[in-house]
């Protein structure tokens, strides 16, 4: 009596149909690494997208007028004339000439703070803020500026924004392509592992088949086996990628940034949420490939 009572808990649950095969650890490791790389690629896509948006938002609605330092020109007089014209133009909110100190601050990240920098012939800059939705005739404006300030050059940032957009788009597409490659690689790895597992468990599959197991019973055993394994492994990989972006975000917040003109490498919390899609995606890929492989293998049996 007492023996049966002690034995009962062990027998309540039926044993797993599939053993945890040898080599499962290395498969888990491969899936975890794939998920980590996918996490980095996805993070890269999100950073590139956010950066492109912030660049565009920062430059949209602004134009810059430069007074080039040439020969015997009188930049101060030309700056004043240009600011007057700009301020009187409909659609322009305000026009502000940048001081020498502002100019030096702009070039400081690239050239440093040497004394020699201060004597370099910098153009004088006028930052112009357009009213929301205003589209002034820039060609006519430039003509009027040239008449009063012959060394004035008007830059609406169109080319710069275009290049930035192209660069950001290239980065986004490259990261998406890497993401797609990693997804294909993960699917292929899981499919390969499933087939290897099927080959290793061929005896079990054939026996269950001969004993009258429905295809879906056998397929389910494999599906869940690989679904759970991929979910756990990919969650570990994605978690490491998330930690890296979170750590970079903390450094950004602390004001520690390695290269000042690069966008911050941290991701806000809502963007980090997207990385949770990776384990879900990996598990779904594992589930689907396992099912397809097992059903295909079973159909080869009588």
């Amino acid at each position, binding site marked *: 009596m007492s023996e049966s009572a002690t*034995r009962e808990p*062990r027998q309540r649950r039926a044993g*797993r149909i599939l053993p945890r095969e040898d080599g499962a650890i290395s498969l888990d490791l491969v899936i975890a690494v794939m998920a980590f790389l996918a996490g980095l690629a996805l993070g890269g896509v999100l950073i590139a997208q956010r950066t492109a948006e912030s660049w565009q938002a920062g430059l949209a609605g602004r134009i810059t007028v430069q007074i080039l330092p040439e020969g015997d020109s009188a930049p101060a007089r030309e700056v004043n004339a240009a600011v007057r014209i700009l301020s009187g133009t409909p659609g322009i909110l305000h026009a502000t000439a940048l001081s020498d100190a502002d100019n030096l601050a702009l070039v400081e990240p690239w050239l440093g703070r040497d004394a020699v920098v201060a004597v370099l012939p910098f153009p004088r800059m006028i930052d112009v803020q357009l009213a929301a939705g205003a589209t002034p005739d820039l060609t006519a404006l430039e003509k009027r500026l040239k008449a009063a300030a012959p060394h004035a050059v008007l830059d609406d940032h169109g080319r710069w924004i275009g290049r930035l957009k192209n660069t950001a788009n290239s980065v986004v597409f490259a990261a998406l392509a890497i993401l797609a490659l990693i997804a294909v690689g993960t699917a292929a790895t899981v499919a390969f592992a499933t087939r290897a597992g099927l080959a290793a468990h061929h005896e079990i599959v054939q026996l269950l*088949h*001969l*004993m*009258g*197991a429905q295809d879906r019973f056998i397929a389910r055993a494999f599906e869940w086996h690989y679904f759970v394994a991929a979910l756990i492994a990919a969650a570990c990989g994605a978690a490491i990628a998330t930690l890296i972006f979170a750590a970079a975000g903390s450094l950004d917040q602390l004001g520690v940034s390695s290269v000042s003109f690069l966008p911050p490498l941290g991701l806000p919390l809502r963007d980090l949420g997207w990385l949770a899609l990776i384990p879900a995606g990996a598990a779904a890929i594992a589930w689907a490939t396992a099912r397809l492989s097992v059903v295909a293998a079973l159909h080869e049996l009588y």
Partner: protein
Amino acid sequence: MVRFENVGMRYGAGPEVLRDVSFALDPGSLTFLTGPSGAGKSSLLKLVFMAEKPSRGLISLFGRDLARLKRADLPALRRRVGVVFQEFRLLDHLSAFDNVALPLRLAGHRPAEYRRDVEELLSWVGLGTRLQARPPTLSGGEQQRVAIARAVVAKPDLLLADEPTGNVDPEMGERLIRLFAELNRFGTTVMIATHDRALVESTRAREMRLIDGRVIEMRSNR
């Protein structure tokens, strides 16, 4: 129950291992399939439990022509057949208990429903104290008894056994044959492939002899 008409079978492009085999097993009958090694006994059993397809001829099982059955109909038919494989084919990662319970599990039963039956059956074949032992830790004879218990646990309509007493001592062999006879008495059709003459002579059952892929002798002892 089982009917073969002019059945031939070959593996791939090899020679025919079974030639023009015709016979019928009546419901509730007990038949010995005898013959020397390589005569085709195992191949004939494989055709009956639907592990292989014949290269020609007609096989019907439980009144249904196997060639006309849809794939989806086969699992239900297979669950009506219990098989003792010559090489046992136990699942090494499962306990003796779970191995024996497998047919009941495949039929959708829950552990609570079958625990007592499985334990009783394992006790009957002398393995009551080894319920949780895994096959690699069991002797050949013990593995064979687990395989037999697995084949009979779901009380199949048709029981096929390939050399079921090959690895056990005569006393246990006799006990196992009694188990088959008991099942047969309750209506299970039994076919036992063996070249153990003593086993065949110990009962008055029908004998079907296979030599070189042909049924050359059929003797009814009933």
